[in-house]
């Protein structure tokens, strides 16, 4: 943020295309990695790590949805259903076949990707709100099928207890151990998404979003590319579902209902459509804001009312403040938190000589 970009000249295409063209960005990334992988787990209480875990899971899901909605321009309200596909696939494989996490994770993602392709087929013919309704149907159909198929859902209770992930013979049970597990998966998903976007496929996603007919004319196979977008997005959703399952210790469809899909849509819209950073900021915003509001209200609220009454006040006001802040941020910057961050950056780029 406070660095200068002048004086760096790229002489090759490769250097120009690098994810981090400036040396300072590389140092910043290294510092962030050290902060989150060495410093944070050492200093933070298990409770705070559990919150970061939730954020890491949400980031993976939001990245997947942003690839579809933000980059390809295909709206989906069935994201949570793909998560449940991944969750139940992994839970069945882990309990029935005793498979380790490094197989259940990609398998859950792959199964979700397969279902995602099926759901994506209508996207060739219908667009916008109509596609939203088609994906909404997928949400309900998948939910119903899981709920009514005991071989998938594991019986009447429709929930499967997941054994903890095992790494080098050690079971990862508490939040601190799960922290590394989930963070590593999140980083892999993040790097994958960043690279996908600047690849040929990623550019064709953006071309389809911006002008479908033009994209077709310049030689992009629209049908194939849309299905790839659905597949990649659902793969991320599936992996996100598997992460939830390992984190919660159960696969349960009630965790992946319509409201969860809406939560994820909110993440990518508030964070910023078509932005990797936006997915991260949106996931942090939607996951952590309610918790932060509650912690603040608990700290300062007891000055005004007694504890028992405070519980009711917090529960209600938290929703009001949460909703209010969403509106505020969207009004301040309709392009999302990522754009807001960019504006701040641009301001300081020329500071103090901004015009």
């Amino acid at each position, binding site marked *: 943020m406070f660095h200068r970009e002048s004086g760096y000249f790229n002489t090759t295409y490769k250097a120009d295309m690098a994810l981090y063209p400036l040396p300072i960005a590389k140092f910043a990334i290294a510092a962030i990695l050290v902060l989150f992988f060495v410093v944070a787990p050492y200093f933070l209480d298990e*409770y705070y790590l559990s919150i970061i875990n939730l954020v890491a899971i949400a980031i993976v899901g939001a990245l997947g949805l942003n690839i579809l909605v933000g980059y390809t321009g295909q709206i989906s309200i069935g994201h949570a259903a793909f998560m449940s596909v991944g969750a139940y696939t992994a839970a069945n494989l882990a309990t029935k076949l005793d498979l380790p996490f490094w197989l259940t994770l990609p398998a859950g993602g792959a199964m979700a990707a397969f279902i995602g392709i099926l759901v994506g087929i209508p996207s060739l013919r219908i667009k916008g709100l109509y596609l939203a309704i088609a994906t909404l149907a997928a949400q309900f159909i998948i939910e119903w099928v899981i709920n009514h198929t005991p071989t998938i859902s594991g019986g009447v209770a429709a929930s499967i207890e997941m054994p903890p992930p095992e790494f080098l013979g050690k079971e990862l049970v508490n939040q601190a151990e799960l922290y590394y597990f989930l963070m590593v998966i999140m980083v892999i998903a993040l790097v994958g998404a960043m690279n996908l976007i600047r690849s040929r496929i990623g550019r064709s996603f953006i071309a389809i979003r911006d002008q479908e007919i033009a994209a077709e004319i310049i030689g992009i196979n629209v049908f194939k590319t849309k299905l790839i977008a659905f597949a990649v997005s659902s793969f991320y959703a599936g992996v996100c579902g598997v992460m939830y399952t390992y984190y919660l210790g159960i696969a349960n469809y009630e965790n992946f209902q319509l409201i969860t899909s809406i939560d994820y849509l909110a993440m990518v819209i508030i964070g910023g459509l078509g932005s990797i950073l936006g997915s991260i900021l949106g996931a942090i915003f939607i996951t952590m804001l309610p918790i932060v509001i509650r912690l603040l209200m608990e700290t300062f609220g007891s000055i005004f009312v007694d504890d028992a009454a405070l519980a009711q006040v917090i529960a209600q006001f938290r929703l009001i403040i949460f909703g209010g802040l969403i509106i505020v941020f969207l009004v301040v910057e309709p392009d999302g938190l990522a754009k807001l961050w960019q504006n701040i950056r641009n301001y300081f780029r020329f500071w103090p000589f901004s015009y």
Partner: protein
Amino acid sequence: MKHLQTGLLMAGMVAGAATMAMTSAQAKEIVVGMACDRTGPTQTVGVMLCPAYHDYVKLINSKGGIMGNKIRVVEIDTQYKVPASVEAYQRFKKEGAVVVALWGTPMTQAITSNLNADHIPGTSPGFGTAAAANGEKYPYLFPMAASYWSQAGAAVTFAKQELGGNIKGKKIAFIFYDNPAGREPIPVLEKLAALEGFELKKFAIPPPGVEMKVQVQDITRRYRADFVISHLFGKGPSVHIKEFKRMGYPLKKLLSFVWGAGEADINGAGGWAKAQGYNALNFAGVGSDYAILDEIKAMYKAEGKDAPEAMASTVYYNRGILAGAVHLKAIEMAVKAKGSGDITGEDVQKGFLAIKDFKLGGILPPLNFTDLDHEGGGWARVFRVEGDNFVPAGDWLRGYRDVVIEMLKAE
């Protein structure tokens, strides 16, 4: 300047020493965690149940706490969401909770393994899976109220009473919300149908569970059920009272499980006059005629305040009293056994098992926890709409306990 610094340092040290002395002289503060839903889909229950828990704790604290140890409740509104509940549980753990009240079936399932790993007892009255009542398998989970299996046993017992003591060849309809919790009693009902020789027919209500005209017509006109057992949630109970009434079915022959038992369900069905005879199971006493409720009112009166609004729902408020009372009783047992307020979750778990015949003046059934039975006996009581009130239809009952226990062991 130097003097000022030294002076400040000295003052700080004195103040620090004073606070330390005070805290060590004070009795220990015992923390309990409560996950609550005040803003989610089950908020109509939460806004009545949670204040009751706080009121009970306040009452005990106003009497000096448990052997001098004050209780502090950490409540978190989870909005009936699983991730939020896991976050809440981690928070309770951080605050040092010795017992936690869970809320919601999927959340209970997610947190159960944590309870066992962290040795913190958790309670799930009226939800969670029925099989979780098996204390040998889940030592730290206490449903502490009749599970859906036990409710099914109680419902069939009540049906038998109402139909003259013999239900062989009778037709019993089971109308339920089509989700895992709704389907849970079915294995018990099927077993009892085979055992008692009655005919059982199941009618599923798909989500969102408010449209059931067809099913009710089917039950009353085509199937002509002799008795109906219902297991619905949310707005469903109100709707089914209305529909059965419209079909002219005698509501005396309709018995709802515990989540169709609230005052709000009766009001939603068009008022008390329209719901005469309607029966519902409860795992805590209904009505305001209990000594403990008078004590809470007296406590508020002494402060110059009115009785809390939540008391208007005697059904859910009293269930909150049940949760608070059993928690604090278990803590009391743990403190007594330990001799001080310095207790852990393990002590409270043993405290639960030490509870014997705890009735709290009749608002609770005689609760007994054993190593196997964490339901406390599986008691339920039928309350019937008569006039403008719920009146008890018979005493606390538990039906076919042997069948339920057998299933618990088999699971």
